[in-house]
């Protein structure tokens, strides 16, 4: 009996939620921005978990159902979700989220992607043909993404367009204000080298004038070898590099080992907002502040 009641509740909920725009975001960073722009006018589902490797999300059949009912799909593009999104969209048979429709937001559009390879050669590791897809680590790109999302929402739900535009303005103003603060915080460390596990942060490095081109992985996607780690440690010692960044899903043991051998600290660097921070600005804020503290402490 209780089960049947629950089912009814679910159906009712679904019915009442129908007035809202059904939005599916592939990763939590796009989800966070969509929530800020959409406010209470949207019902948001984010597919990837904040702690998981966004390249290797399982194409669960339950996602097909979510995409089937979506009115907007927000994806990163640039091969970020290439390993799992195409069969889901194909299975969802939802014309609203077809490529080219207003319901399909490809966030990488209009963003100058870094590291576009001039030749496609996988002996250099797992390269991305359209450039490095981790562009959300630059707040300037987040503004472009927010604009894309607002445009799509407006086209689909014209009635709420003013609200979306107001939210976009708020989002941009907040980011602009914060940007000054972040740049000031990281200004003393201009040109400083930081070690990262994977090449996930070139946009962050470029924005804040840091160097993040020393990796624990010998080549993108190739697991660290002791020989390569030894090289990294030697370099860290000789160049006095004191911070190693680790994302939630990366092997912390490896990062800790490198840090202990080189006298550096391991800094948790969440890939996405969602776990410890709710909004995009909070996430970026935590990244910048923790990095500034780590660099300060070991200067």
């Amino acid at each position, binding site marked *: 009996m209780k089960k049947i009641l629950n089912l009814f509740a*679910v159906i009712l909920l679904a019915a009442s939620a129908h007035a809202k725009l059904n939005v599916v975001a592939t990763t939590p960073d796009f989800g966070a921005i969509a929530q800020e722009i959409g406010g209470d006018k949207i019902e948001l589902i984010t597919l990837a*978990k904040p*702690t*998981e*490797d966004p*390249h*290797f999300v*399982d*194409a*669960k*059949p*339950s996602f*097909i*159902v979510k995409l*089937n009912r979506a009115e907007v799909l927000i994806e990163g593009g640039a*091969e970020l979700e*290439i*390993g*799992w*999104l*195409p*069969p889901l969209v*194909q*299975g*969802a*048979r939802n*014309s609203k989220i*077809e490529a080219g429709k207003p319901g399909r937001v490809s966030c990488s*559009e*209009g963003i100058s992607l870094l590291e*576009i*390879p*001039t*030749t*496609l050669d*996988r002996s250099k*590791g*797992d390269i991305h*043909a*359209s450039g490095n897809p981790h562009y959300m680590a630059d*707040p*300037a*790109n987040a*503004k*472009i993404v927010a*604009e*894309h999302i607002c445009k799509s929402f407006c086209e689909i739900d014209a009635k709420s367009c003013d609200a979306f535009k107001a939210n976009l303005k708020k989002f941009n103003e907040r*980011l*602009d*204000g914060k*940007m*000054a603060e972040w740049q000031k915080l990281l200004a003393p460390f201009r040109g400083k080298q930081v070690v990262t596990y994977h090449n996930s942060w070139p946009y962050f490095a*470029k924005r804040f004038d840091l160097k993040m081109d020393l990796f624990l992985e010998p080549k993108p*996607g*190739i*697991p660290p070898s002791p020989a390569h780690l030894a090289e990294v440690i030697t370099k860290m010692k000789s160049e006095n590099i004191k911070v190693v960044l680790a994302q*939630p*899903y*990366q*092997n912390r043991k490896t990062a800790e080992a490198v840090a202990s051998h080189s006298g550096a600290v391991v800094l948790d660097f969440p890939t996405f907002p969602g776990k410890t921070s709710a909004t995009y600005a909070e996430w970026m804020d935590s990244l910048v502040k923790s990095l500034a503290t780590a660099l300060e402490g070991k200067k």
Partner: protein
Amino acid sequence: MKILKMIGLSSALCLSVTTLPAQETNEVGQLKKQLQQMQESFEKVSRAQQQQIEALTKKLDEFTKTQTAPVAAAPKTEEQKNLETQLAAELSKDSVTNTVLTESALKKPWSASDPMRVLGSGSSYLNVSLDGLFAAGGSTAEDIPGLQLGGHDPNQRGFTVQNVEAVFEGFVDPYFRGQANIIYQIDAEGESVVELEEAYAESLSLPGNLQLKAGQYFTEFGRLNPTHPHAWSFVDLPLVNGRFLGGDGLRNPGARLSWLMPTPFYSELFLGVQNSHGETAQSFRNEHEGEPFLGRVHNVGRVKSFGDLLFTPRYATSFDLSDTQTLLLGASGAFGPNASGADTDTQIYGVDLFWKWKPANHHGGFPFVSWQTEAMLRKYQAGAFSNIGDDADSSGAIDKGETDSFGDGLIHNVPRETLTDYGFYSQVAYGFRKGWVANLRGEYVTRTRAAAYEKLYGDDSDRLARWRISPNLTWYPSEFSKLRLQYNYDHGQSFGTEHSIWLQLEFLLGPHGAHKF
């Protein structure tokens, strides 16, 4: 200037290559040396260029960063004017951001300083990839092809080219996606074989949550049948698939409609109609190359009516048991005539289960645990059969010079009967660290009871009970290659116990393929 030099160099390279075959052997050595030198200098030039480009881009970046206002020398375009007003507004707000977002910035045209985009997935009409699957190893069995039921299984001592697969895939237009898988194989005799494994179009925008697939394709029966050998967790085909669906899998030309049902959980209904004849329809209208199959010589006639086609319904449903666990269940059927007599049908029923656990902080998809099981039951109506027709001179026996299907010179009369067989496999995969997976598979196939034909001339090894245990260890150096070591403990009523060991290598060239769940 550098580019000119490069062109000169490369054309020189081309020239030197084209003149090679005409020269004598000592000159070949010289030329090789020259070629090497040229290559070296070519690489040096391109390296230097690369460095220069990088340096310039860096400079350009710095330049644009320090630049505070646009240079006003050139006549102002609409875009520049827009930019200026935007900038003025932004600057007066005392904001530090240096990205100005306008409509024109979003749709900026290509400029000469942008890197050229090379062919990659998503940027071309046709995605082409090539997958090579090879095996090496051996077995205690005399008759390895008899032991390994899969058409792409390792089938001889030494090396086997299991499967070299070319995949062509892309969107046809706003209505269809197309895919073709063409297989190259070198069989145990060293003969090259080409197979059109799949070539089909799939609809993109049918109304009512429907989807149509048409062409030549693997029947969506269970979990393993519709997948290609390189996606399997073991080097070989499960026994139950081999016996009921055939060594090359159940696939034929046809069409299939599927319906994504409006349930809160995933649930999909498939209905397929395919040709029921040919060598890839093992349990249906297949002549088995004239060899007796289940005690009868089979004869394939024409398709006379709609009822002569193969019908393949399937239902699949899935639940997320928790944030980290997913369950997928399916039930499939394949119904169609077989070629053992007039009005004889085959029914195959299957159930399948797939469960997977993957933690919320996996790296590259690891660690994970998955469990997959499929069980099948086949009911084969075998027609009454007599080889009396082979006795051309009505002598009461098959004499020399007459076609002898059974090879024993006798005339056999087998009554019509229904043969029921079943089997299953169950496999567990444990991805214990990035790139490493330990797999274990157990399987069993058997008949329910001895058939009339088996009482007449002995048990049929295609129906006798058989089981197999296969552990393997698989290493994926990257997503695009794999090495696998597998051991098979094989036990069958007809052959006793055999041991086999196989090492498998796979490589994949081309754009990143997506994985279905």
